[in-house]
């Protein structure tokens, strides 16, 4: 059974008072995204993202299947988000139907799948009969807030990292070449969506928030679990480097001034730019590392 996180009154008051004084518990400024650490596994398509104390792993796998009847030229792409009590007592085992779990998986779905980050047409092998099915399994290993941001990062990193086996088609005959036989191919990634989550706090009365002109609401980026449990509202913005808004979700919560929300979007863009560069650099580094072995192998063969 999922347990609600209850923060003691004294502690929550302390955190809120500190926020009013422009202070956060971990000393970050309001606009500071925690440092992102991305590591890749031995195999293709295995990425682990660490965001502060939050840790999310994503594993991408593929199989050959039949495409949907109404979309014969497209492959399949499934994202499954698994939040087990391993990450924290607030998650229930098995059924991921809690409000937050549903919102999280829907946002990742919209940010990556619906936005067309993966080129599904490139997954087609034989139109109408064979295609690749790509599956991304997200596991939240540790949760200290920001699981949407971290999960989205993990999925996109794993997709960028993944290589599917090469296939050759001869008439109706499809041959799948094992990875050790032929160099596997990368997936077509059309853009890199990055999620940034803002948490809103209301330092004053509800009346002031609804009727006042002050707009004194506090917005912080990338809240920790404690901050999340106390927030009054949340906004997740997904952007890519092309200055495109991929997805925005503010599912109720504290009413916020439209201009402040726009401001959040612009702040998110700066973070998006930075993280995208970081990911691309890491991917490059990783593939070079792997290529080094490939070169050794090929040079041996050449001899």
């Amino acid at each position, binding site marked *: 059974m999922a347990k609600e996180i209850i923060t003691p009154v004294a502690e929550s008051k302390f955190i809120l008072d500190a926020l009013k004084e422009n202070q956060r518990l971990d000393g970050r400024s309001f606009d500071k995204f925690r440092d992102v650490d991305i590591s890749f596994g031995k195999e293709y398509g295995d990425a682990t993202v660490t965001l502060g104390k939050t840790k999310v792993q994503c594993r991408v796998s593929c199989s050959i299947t039949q495409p949907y009847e109404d979309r014969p030229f497209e492959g399949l792409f499934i994202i499954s988000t698994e939040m087990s009590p391993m990450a924290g007592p607030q998650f229930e085992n098995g059924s991921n139907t809690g409000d937050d779990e549903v919102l999280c998986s829907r946002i990742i779905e919209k940010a990556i799948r619906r936005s067309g980050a993966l080129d599904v047409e490139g997954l087609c092998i034989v139109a109408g009969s064979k295609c690749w099915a790509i599956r991304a399994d997200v596991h939240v290993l540790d949760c200290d807030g920001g699981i949407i941001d971290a999960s989205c990062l993990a999925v996109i990193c794993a997709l960028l990292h993944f290589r599917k086996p090469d296939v050759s088609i001869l008439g109706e005959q499809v041959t799948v070449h094992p990875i050790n036989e032929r160099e596997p191919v990368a997936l077509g990634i059309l853009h890199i969506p990055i999620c940034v989550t803002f948490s809103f706090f209301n330092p004053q009365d509800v*009346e002031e928030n609804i*009727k006042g002109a002050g707009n004194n609401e506090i917005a912080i980026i990338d809240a920790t679990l404690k901050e999340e449990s106390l927030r009054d509202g949340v906004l997740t913005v997904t952007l890519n480097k092309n200055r495109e808004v991929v997805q925005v979700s503010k599912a109720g919560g504290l009413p916020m001034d439209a201009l402040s929300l726009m401001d959040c979007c612009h702040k998110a863009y700066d973070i998006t730019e930075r993280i995208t560069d970081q990911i691309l650099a890491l991917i490059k580094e990783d593939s070079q590392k792997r290529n080094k072995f490939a070169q050794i192998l090929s040079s041996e063969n050449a001899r």
Partner: protein
Amino acid sequence: MSDVISVIKRQSGLKYASIDNDEMENFSSDEDVPMVDIDGKSNGGKRNEAAAGEIVTPGELITEDPIWMRGHGTYFLENSTYSSAAGTISRVNRLLSVIPLKGRYTPETGDHIVGRITDVGNKRWKVDIGGKQHAVLMLGSVNLPGGILRRKSESDELQMRTFLKEGDVLNAEVQSLFQDGSASLHTRSLKYGKLRDGLLIQVPSSLVVRSKNHTHNLPGNVTVLLGVNGFIWLRKTSKMDVARETPSAGPASDISEGPTGAKSLNPTNSVSITRLEEESSWKIYSDKNDPSITPSIRQNISRYANVIKALAFCEIGLTHERIVIGYEASIAYSNIGELIEREVMESIGDDVINIEKMRGNGATE
């Protein structure tokens, strides 16, 4: 039209015909609504003062004058008071509040209510009174068999279900209110307690006006208990009902002089209240109805039930007089079953209003 079923056909698509928009003006519905005139006639809190009785809607600014005390249906920021409900403004002395058009029954101390037991708990019953929360009736707030002076014992706690059980209907008075607004009831008077010999109907609580007396003996040997919460119990007039009204010349004489020519109640039959009190025993918690309810009384009860439903349908406030007038007007329909037809209900409503106006007491409200 056949007497088997009446079917009303509505042609106007899926428009819902609630009583208030019957004569809905048929503005051309295909027209799109233009964006212009955003700051048109309807106001979005840009006005300074709203007068008493005026209609306000949520979020609307009522006043910027800080002298007002803020009552129900309002909230404030700095000096400004806003409405939090759709309703009319009421100013009582310095208290400013908004009375919502509709809402559940809100109990007040002293209210005479009719309710239904939903739950038997530890030394208390839960009673559904049509409010936001169920009311509580403590074991200590009821009369137990064996006289008023009897002490309560632990065995009473164990046999609470033999007094009142789930489903039982009772009338009671609101004794006090808890912090959260829920009511605590008591039945420590012989006029309160378990109800028998009749049936319950429900109307919106706003139609029952609080008054001194909520139990009325009606022509045709029927007694009505108008619960302030909109629960109404109709039953055969009992000896006690007669006794209650006869000694005091006031309300009882009202009836015998009534325009209906109601049978004048025979005072020799009446039993004194004190005598009844002595008889107070297990009988007050009996589930047995009076065996002498004749078919004609049953028919009268059905007729009154339909009259009250018709008045409620027309959103006419329920008073003793109006129920009697409605009953008289309904006699024109010999078949009681006809009273559930829409037109008949409307015509009874009109009759009641007209007759009341003719008698000149319609303006008192």
